[in-house]
């Protein structure tokens, strides 16, 4: 099976070695073979994909220059709106929902020539760390099918890792891009808050949600991010900060780059196998000429508590829109209030309801100051930790997850234990900084480990630069 890259696709198209239509058909064939076992895709958008492929083939025939993602087969997480293509958020409440418009990120991918193959499975409303909270069944990790692919963007990670897409979009609220990237052994990136428009991303926690790419190499992550990044008038939190050419910027040498290693990310609870690989990764960074520095990020240990206040509070508010009136499921009743309660009770799954209850509680009269306000204050301290660190170092390196991919069902009984799996990723989510997971070897040659790289706000280029150099130096085969 050929592993395609973005440049590889463009070159093959330009040289007429393959047509965009043949390539799309080849990927649909792979999906037909592999997806029944993996459950990575929930919905295929063949009509739309072939129409786009034909447009690209016409461009090739006319000899016109090909756009940067010409003919590249891409998968989209099912919380991101796709016009006329069913978008369920992994929830029964949106089982039959067909968005009337495209998310800006999707529109930009297609404008750059990408072929949207379909929608990928995820935890319901992106709430989960294992993809086991999908109403449409779990995704299996292509590297070890008795294990989870991570979550919540498990389908997007598994699709790319299994060769069922060249790249994909996921969303990250507390680690939902980086952690599945780590579990499936592929690079995965969350840009700074405000870097990619959230227009058309069905909201979970608006101050945390970010769209970002998965691919098989850092260069393709950079190329995909460049296409989707930048100001969008439909999202007032997307910034006007210019978008650098990440693909060129990442080629800069990393010798002398100041890399911070925060002590707080290497405490108890880390799997020994993960620790060994991360230590080997840090040794490799030294060999590459990076200047390593131990740093302190004093509030790291408070991040999970803070995150589960803020994320659930925002979720309880955002998910109020599912009321059985404008879209989605309705469970009938002669009273309006009973209709709301029954619809929401029947339409949402267990984890979503749990978070709505918790989020409503922390915002409710008498508890607001003790929980939500306290959470926002500690969030400020966590963000300050990052700002302070970036006065001393260019990037920060940590493990992505304390554990490798775990077995299906292993952690579902205790929600708090599942939340604690996000311990190294939620910090960057709260601070708004960019973060990326890059492959850092496999435990016993089997279970992938991810090295996480944080950069300062809008410092994606530095993150990608180190990710690319680490990959070139053999980080994935440590």
């Amino acid at each position, binding site marked *: 099976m050929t592993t395609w890259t973005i440049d590889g696709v463009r070159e093959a198209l330009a040289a007429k070695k393959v047509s965009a239509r043949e390539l799309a058909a080849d990927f649909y064939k792979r999906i037909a073979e592999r997806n029944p076992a993996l459950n990575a895709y929930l919905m295929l958008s063949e009509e739309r994909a072939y129409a786009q492929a034909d447009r690209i083939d016409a461009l090739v025939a006319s000899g016109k220059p090909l756009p940067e993602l010409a003919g590249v087969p891409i998968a989209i997480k099912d919380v991101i709106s796709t016009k006329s293509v069913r978008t369920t958020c992994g929830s029964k409440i949106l089982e039959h929902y067909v968005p*009337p418009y495209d998310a800006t990120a999707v529109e930009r991918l297609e404008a750059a020539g990408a072929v949207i193959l379909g929608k990928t499975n995820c935890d319901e409303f992106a709430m989960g760390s294992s993809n086991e909270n999908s109403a449409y069944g779990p995704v299996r990790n292509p590297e070890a099918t008795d294990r989870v692919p991570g979550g919540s963007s498990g389908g997007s990670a598994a699709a790319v890792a299994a060769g069922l897409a060249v790249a994909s979009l996921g969303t990250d609220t507390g680690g939902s891009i980086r952690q599945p990237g780590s579990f499936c052994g592929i690079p995965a990136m969350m840009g700074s808050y405000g870097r990619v428009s959230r227009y058309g991303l069905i909201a979970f926690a608006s101050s945390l949600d970010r769209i970002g790419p998965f691919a098989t190499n850092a260069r393709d992550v950079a190329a995909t991010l460049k296409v989707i990044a930048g100001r969008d008038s439909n999202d007032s939190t997307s*910034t006007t900060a210019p978008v650098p050419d990440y693909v060129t910027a990442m080629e800069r040498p990393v010798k002398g780059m100041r890399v911070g290693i925060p002590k707080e990310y290497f405490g108890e609870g880390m799997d020994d196998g993960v620790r060994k690989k991360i230590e080997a990764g840090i040794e490799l960074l030294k060999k590459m000429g990076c200047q390593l520095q131990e740093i302190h990020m004093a509030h790291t240990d408070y991040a999970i508590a803070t995150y589960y206040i803020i994320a659930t509070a925002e979720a309880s508010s955002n998910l109020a829109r599912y009321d059985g009136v404008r879209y989605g499921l*309705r469970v009938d009743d002669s009273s309006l209030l009973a209709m709301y309660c029954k619809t929401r009770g029947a339409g949402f799954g267990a984890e979503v309801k749990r978070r709505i*209850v918790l989020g409503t509680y922390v915002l409710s009269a008498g508890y607001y100051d003790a929980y939500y306000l306290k959470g926002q204050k500690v969030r400020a*301290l966590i963000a300050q930790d990052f700002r302070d660190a970036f006065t001393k170092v260019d990037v920060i390196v940590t493990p992505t997850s304390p554990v490798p991919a775990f077995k299906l069902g292993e952690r579902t009984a205790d929600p708090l234990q599942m939340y604690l799996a996000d311990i190294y990723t939620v910090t960057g989510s709260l601070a708004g900084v960019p973060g990326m997971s890059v492959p850092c070897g496999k435990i016993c040659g089997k279970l992938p480990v991810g090295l996480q790289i944080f950069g300062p706000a809008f410092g994606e280029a530095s993150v990608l630069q180190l990710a690319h150099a680490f990959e070139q130096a053999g980080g994935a085969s440590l």
Partner: protein
Amino acid sequence: MKISREDVERVAELAYLDLTEAELESYRQQIDDILEYIGKLDELDTTNVAPMAQVLADDQTADATLREDVVVPCRVTPEILEQAPDPEPPYFRVPKVIER
């Protein structure tokens, strides 16, 4: 115990969420554990800390958030109504709200 069964019932009512008996009890226990864990934030003195009400710095949003107030027609009304469980174009129909 941080949260009682009555608290969970009250919150579910505020959130317009029907919960089964089994859900009420399991959520009470699980949310109690989570709140217990969240209690560790009390170790931090945050008296003089300003809450982080937005993620972006002012210089990253000032030019982005302000725009002219221009009316732009919505061209997807029929598609939007098609998604409604009980549409009566151009309206959404709901169960009777006013009893008399």
